[in-house]
């Protein structure tokens, strides 16, 4: 992970974050003991399959669980030296849409059907800039629409979200998120619903804006390709836990967790020769209400027996320095398995 040597806190630091939901079916352990950090100007990628806790992690940072009575959040979230888990609702509301902002997979759901795109961005700007005139806010909004590559921004200002194409809508939402110069931008599957050509444009836009404004970005996706394109650091989540964490180059070139191997083995890739067969993880992801004992991955792990029965009884801790892994296999053994058994099939 990127860590500062000055001894001060990273820009965003999450420590032992745990989020549980009480439901009729039981307690959902959506996020367990997550710790990570993001510096300004850096991008953290969070990958994992659906239901692994990616969105809940980011919603907790934004304080959105506060509106859900069944959510229990524990741990610490430090944003620019301010602790958010214990902060007042009012303080968190001020930060949201201001210092921190979010873009979602489905931009329509984030847009009001009865207000024009322009009116919504103006409103978002004025909430965080009291005393700014309507005219100034309008100018700022049109600048933002132009900045994210929306043609004819003056005209588009007066249109509704549903009149935009998918890619344009995603751009409008990015303009909405960026209008207050957020220092932390959380993007939850922002390109999953888009064609690759449009995805490339949006990723490019996020990269450019980050270069320009130096924000910290959290990019949540199930697509390892998108992470490899953008992220400086990567978290791999499984069953609500971080199972591997490290600089992108390490996680992609020397992955250490059997689940990460499975993810890589599942992907056909254009940058490699065609493989005869994909080498996916067997089985299906666990229910977060009823997590398997020991390592949550053990029912799907081909190496579960190799370390005595600890995999079945003892939850592996996330260990290591910059590149950390939650797996009982000895480090030497992991390296050997990766190079001899896994890498040749990728």
């Amino acid at each position: 992970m990127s860590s500062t040597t000055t001894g001060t806190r990273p820009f965003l630091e999450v420590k032992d974050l745990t989020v549980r939901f009480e439901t009729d079916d039981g307690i959902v352990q959506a996020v367990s003991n997550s710790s990570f950090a993001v510096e300004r100007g850096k991008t953290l990628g969070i990958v994992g399959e659906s239901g692994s806790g990616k969105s809940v992690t980011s919603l907790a940072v934004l304080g959105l669980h506060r509106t859900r009575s069944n959510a229990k959040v524990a741990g610490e979230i430090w944003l620019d030296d301010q602790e958010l888990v214990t902060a007042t609702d009012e303080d968190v509301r001020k930060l949201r849409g201001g210092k921190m902002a979010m873009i979602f997979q489905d931009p329509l759901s984030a847009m009001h059907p009865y207000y024009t795109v322009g009116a919504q961005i103006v409103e978002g700007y004025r909430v965080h800039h009291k005393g700014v005139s309507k005219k100034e806010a309008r100018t700022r909004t049109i600048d933002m629409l132009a900045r994210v590559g929306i043609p004819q921004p003056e005209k588009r200002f007066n249109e509704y979200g549903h009149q935009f194409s998918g890619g344009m809508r995603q751009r409008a939402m990015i303009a909405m998120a960026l209008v207050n110069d957020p220092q932390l931008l959380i993007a939850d599957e922002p390109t999953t619903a888009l064609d690759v050509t449009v995805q490339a444009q949006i990723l490019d836009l996020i990269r450019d804006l980050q270069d320009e404004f130096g924000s910290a970005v959290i990019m949540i996706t199930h697509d390892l390709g998108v992470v490899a394109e953008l992220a400086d650091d990567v978290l791999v989540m499984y069953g609500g836990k971080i199972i591997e964490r490290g600089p992108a180059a390490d996680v992609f070139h020397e992955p250490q967790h059997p689940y990460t191997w499975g993810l890589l083995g599942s992907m056909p890739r254009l940058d490699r020769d065609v493989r005869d067969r994909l080498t996916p993880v067997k089985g299906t992801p666990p229910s977060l209400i009823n997590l398997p004992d020991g390592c949550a991955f053990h029912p799907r792990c081909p190496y579960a027996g190799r370390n005595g029965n600890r995999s079945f009884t003892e939850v592996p801790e996330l260990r290591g320095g910059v590149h950390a892994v939650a797996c009982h296999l000895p480090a030497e053994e992991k390296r050997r398995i990766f190079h001899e058994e896994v890498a040749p099939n990728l």
Partner: protein
Amino acid sequence: MTDNLLEVSGLKMHFPITKGVFKRKVGAVRAVDGIDLAVKKGETLGLVGESGCGKSTTGRLMTRILEPTEGKVLFDGRDVSHVGQAGLRPLRRDVQMIFQDPYSSLNPRHTVGSIISAPLQIQNIPTPNGLKSAVQDLLKLVGLNPEHYNRYPHEFSGGQRQRIGIARALALRPKLIVADEPVSALDVSIQAQVVNLLDDLQREFDLTYVFIAHDLSVVRHISDRVAVMYLGRVVEIADREQLYKNPRHPYTVALMSAVPVPDPARRERAQRNRVLLTGDVPSPINPPSGCRFRTRCWKAQDICATEDPALIPRLEDPASHQTACHFPVTEDEVVAGRRPAGAQA
């Protein structure tokens, strides 16, 4: 006879746009607008392209779920373009379709057993060991527990539901399966399991596949040949290796360069070589004159607005590699490390 299992020629599907109480026709969505394609016995033909380019419509014409407004569909040499219900009966056995959304394509009120056995009953297929055992064999075949015969779709995960859809498609031992985005809604690890399953089944039953997807990596993995679609047309078609190594159509080049590469070390090179398309796909109601890609093409010249380029072999390409472009992209233009000259960054 050729070794083509399916042939379509001059295929068009124009959905009428109507207005007023008298349903006056005011225009048409040209979802498929002149396609010639052949699917060889035993092969997998991949169909790729952006959302709305007509992939699903092509699939539904091939399976004759839709009746084409123009053109021909030949299955096993027989013209089925306009045959009615009775004439379609054998086709309903020989050709099956698998859909993207395993949730909505299965009736939630029916058990897995009745979902999978329905086609057997409709077609009066004899089952020597009984219907139940036939269904259980199919469940085993697709990697599901045969004991789960009496369960309902909601009791299964997305990947398992897709397997149910595959079992249903296999029930009649079809010759051709048209799979429309069969793995797009699935998580990567489950997606790979289903891709491997489709592979195994093809080998075991000599199946022919048309595999529709927007994911170029999955299509490359599974297909023998690939056709790239844009605005209701095939703009390039070739053997898999040939297409991915020597894409000729500017659109194919742009599409491929947009795929994110899961290797941070190649990030900069991938970005440097990326051809970013600007603007949106034009409306299929009023496609551009001449070459339909010209409004987004960095190589467009005057002739592109007036002359519709034919889908034929270009440059030194083999007959099997056809491109609909007046100025096909050459090897020199796409060599690693360089963006095609003139292309926008």
